[in-house]
């Protein structure tokens, strides 16, 4: 043992301790900033942090979180704050804060310099796989981008609708199909004509009929001759049977073949209808019953708000992560390990704020205070499944005497099946600043109005539901870029100018990655009723013209087909029907002749038997008389 070795060891440990104490604040600051940046994706800065090792208290002068969408602005800025940590937990490297009061929280404050992360760092922070929320954001934007251009020109419907070019573009399928039917008919007829050219049973039928007709039982004197005639009839019957079977078979086949074509009118009607629908689609005739006016006017604004909300929710999800059945192996930078957490017997997660009291304002300065907010949150933790209780927030805000805001939420990540819900209620917000999309035939601004907004969101595993209801009153629209160039658009202007309340209902559902976004408003109903009245006649005319053009184009070919079918039916079925008729008649004739001959034979046999009896009787009488 080298006992003197204790001295340099203690010196070394002492140096490490001193350095640690000297730089601890900077290390904690760095750690918090790094973690925050990983969550937010923009700079997170903490100024003047001081950790007191003796009473385990932390205090900072300023905490800024950059808005990742506008890096010259802060998402949140918090002033001087101090709190204590639970010592027993800290000994296990868990940061448990029983209660923290955060005052003077502001949002939207200007930054002195850009808070964007360096590109490399930003790429590393944003390298996550896109999830349900990213898919939802993209899908929502597509819903708005893919709204068809609004058509309101009544003259367009009647004058500019070039039916011929539409028909050409649509490439009528009915014509090809009728041609194909005709080819099929010709081929079938050809096959039957070839058969009929080789099949001539007339001679044979005539011979059999002549043979049968020539047999007259009355003219035959003896029974043996009659039996011979019977044999002749039976032979003819056998020959006829074979011939009839062939004729019957061909009769059935020919009729089956041609019956197939008899259903063509139904097919043609269906084909014409399909072509008609396709042309209507290409014509893009406006469906005046669903102009989606609410979606056009407020859709983009709603989508923007929902997307912003989704970004905030994504942040919350990062702060309060989901439970995983088992930790998954993560990709991480070299020499940086992955921390695995285990069950804790104290119920302490690695980070927990049991109770947070919050106050501040949504505005960036005292001149523009926005909503003055206060509220509380509980159970903010990095491991809710260990803490075992959901995170609950309740914030209230007011601006002046009339406007109010309330946000309540519950984020239950205590099990692998997350259950989050957030409710949002805003009252008496002005609508003047509400952005609405510039559309030629719709108003471009709201010049006056107030609204109450109620929103509710529920999120579970693979499920997302959001309902937003905006109830606006005393509304006046501005028509600065309105194109009142025809009767319909003038009518819209009149209708909207007369409306003083708006009612917008937004429903968004996502289940198994299928997004269903609906935005309805009272504007749609009112406007579409009016448009329907005015536009229905023009639309009906356009639709009739398309229908007529298809009928006209297909009529000649259909007539041609009908004519060909009749012609071929006569040519093929005529002889076969005749053969069938003849063979049936001869068959009947043979059957009758057979019965006639058989009856004659029976009659004569009975007569001969009577004669023999009489003769035997007289011979016996003669014998006894002698």
């Amino acid at each position, binding site marked *: 043992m*080298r006992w003197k070795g204790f001295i340099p*060891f203690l010196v070394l440990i002492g140096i490490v301790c001193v350095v640690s104490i000297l730089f601890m604040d900077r290390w904690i600051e760095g750690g918090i900033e790094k973690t925050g940046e990983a969550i937010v994706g923009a700079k997170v800065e903490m100024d003047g942090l001081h950790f007191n090792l003796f009473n385990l208290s932390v205090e900072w002068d300023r905490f800024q979180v950059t808005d990742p969408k506008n890096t010259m602005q802060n998402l949140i800025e918090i002033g001087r704050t101090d709190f204590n940590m639970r010592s027993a937990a800290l000994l296990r490297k868990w940061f448990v804060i029983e209660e923290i009061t955060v005052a003077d929280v502001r949002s939207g404050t200007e930054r002195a310099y850009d808070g964007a992360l360096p590109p490399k760092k930003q790429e590393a922070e944003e390298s996550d796989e896109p999830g349900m929320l990213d898919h939802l954001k993209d899908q929502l934007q597509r819903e708005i981008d893919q709204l068809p251009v609004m058509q309101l020109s009544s003259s367009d419907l009647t004058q500019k609708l070039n039916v011929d070019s539409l028909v050409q573009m649509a490439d009528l399928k009915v014509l090809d199909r009728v041609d194909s039917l005709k080819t099929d008919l010709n081929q079938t007829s050809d096959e039957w004509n070839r058969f009929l050219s080789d099949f001539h049973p007339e001679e044979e039928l005539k011979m059999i009929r002549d043979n049968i007709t020539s047999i007259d039982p009355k003219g035959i004197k003896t029974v043996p001759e009659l039996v011979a005639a019977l044999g002749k009839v039976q032979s003819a019957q056998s020959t006829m049977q074979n011939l009839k079977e062939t004729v019957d078979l061909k009769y059935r086949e020919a009729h089956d073949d041609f019956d197939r074509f008899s259903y063509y009118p139904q097919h043609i009607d269906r084909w014409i209808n399909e072509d008609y629908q396709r042309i209507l689609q290409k014509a893009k005739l406006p469906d005046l019953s669903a102009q989606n006016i609410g979606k056009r006017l407020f859709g983009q604004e709603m989508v923007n708000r929902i997307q912003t909300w989704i970004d905030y929710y994504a942040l919350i999800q990062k702060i309060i992560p989901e439970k995983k059945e*088992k930790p998954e192996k993560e990709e991480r930078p070299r020499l940086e390990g992955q*921390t695995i*957490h*285990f069950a804790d017997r104290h119920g302490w997660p690695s980070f927990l704020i049991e109770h947070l009291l919050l106050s501040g304002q949504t505005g960036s300065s005292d001149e523009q205070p926005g909503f003055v907010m206060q509220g509380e949150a509980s159970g903010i933790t990095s491991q809710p499944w260990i803490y075992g209780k959901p995170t609950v927030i309740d914030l209230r805000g007011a601006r002046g005497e009339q406007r109010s805001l309330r946000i309540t939420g519950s984020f239950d990540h205590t099990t692998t099946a997350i259950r989050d819900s957030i409710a949002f209620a805003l009252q008496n917000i002005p609508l003047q600043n509400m952005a609405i999309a510039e559309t030629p035939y719709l108003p471009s601004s709201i010049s006056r109005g107030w609204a109450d907004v109620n929103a509710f969101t529920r999120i579970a595993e693979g499920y997302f539901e959001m309902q937003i209801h905006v109830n606006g009153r005393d509304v006046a629209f501005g028509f600065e870029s309105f194109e009142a160039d025809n009767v319909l658009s003038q009518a819209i202007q009149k209708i909207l100018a007369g409306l003083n309340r708006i009612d917008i209902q937004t429903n968004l559902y996502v289940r198994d990655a299928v997004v269903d976004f609906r935005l309805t408003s009272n504007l749609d109903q009112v406007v579409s009723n009016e448009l329907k009245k005015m536009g229905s006649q023009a639309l009906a005319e356009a639709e009739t013209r398309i229908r007529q053009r298809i009928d006209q184009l297909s009529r000649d070919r259909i007539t041609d087909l009908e004519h060909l079918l009749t012609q071929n039916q006569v040519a093929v079925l005529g002889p076969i029907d005749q053969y069938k008729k003849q063979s049936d008649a001869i068959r009947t004739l043979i059957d009758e002749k057979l019965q006639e001959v058989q009856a004659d034979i029976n009659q004569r046999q009975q007569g001969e038997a009577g004669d023999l009896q009489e003769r035997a009787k007289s011979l016996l009488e003669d014998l006894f008389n002698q």
Partner: protein
Amino acid sequence: MFILKLLSKLLKALQSADSPNQLAWGFALGAILGLTPLWNLHNILIILLIFILKVNLSSALFSLILFSLIAWIFDPLFHTLGFALLVQLPFLQSLWNLLYNAPVLSLSRFNDTIVMGSLFCSLILLVPNFLLFRWMVVLYRRTWNESVKKWRLAKILKSSKAVRFYQKVKFLGGK
């Protein structure tokens, strides 16, 4: 400069009166410091052992530097191994739970995959490292020592001429 100084010390140690065991234990314990992340609780114990046991400090320091480089190469292996030990072996879960809930011990970062993987490897390799290094020291002293002593580089290093030369050059540079 530091490397030259270290090589010089290592050469001196190899030719000193220190036993092969002292040198080999220095290497083996230094390997633990080098393979595992340095700022960890367990390394305080290793440093204490290096200081109070009669192991060669130069060989420990040399080993620390050498194995730090090796650790960088084997980092993905340590991560995989650490993850397997901490997550994929159910029979160890109760042990980890116990450590996780123990005061101070939970500060050891044992639940970090790199710390766990590298510590496990270095502990497994402790005895083999010791035996290997002892064999190498013995082999060196028996076979190479005399030849190396005659090398010009070895003489320079041993006499610390290079070190002195560097100091002169440094002063001449005015820094």
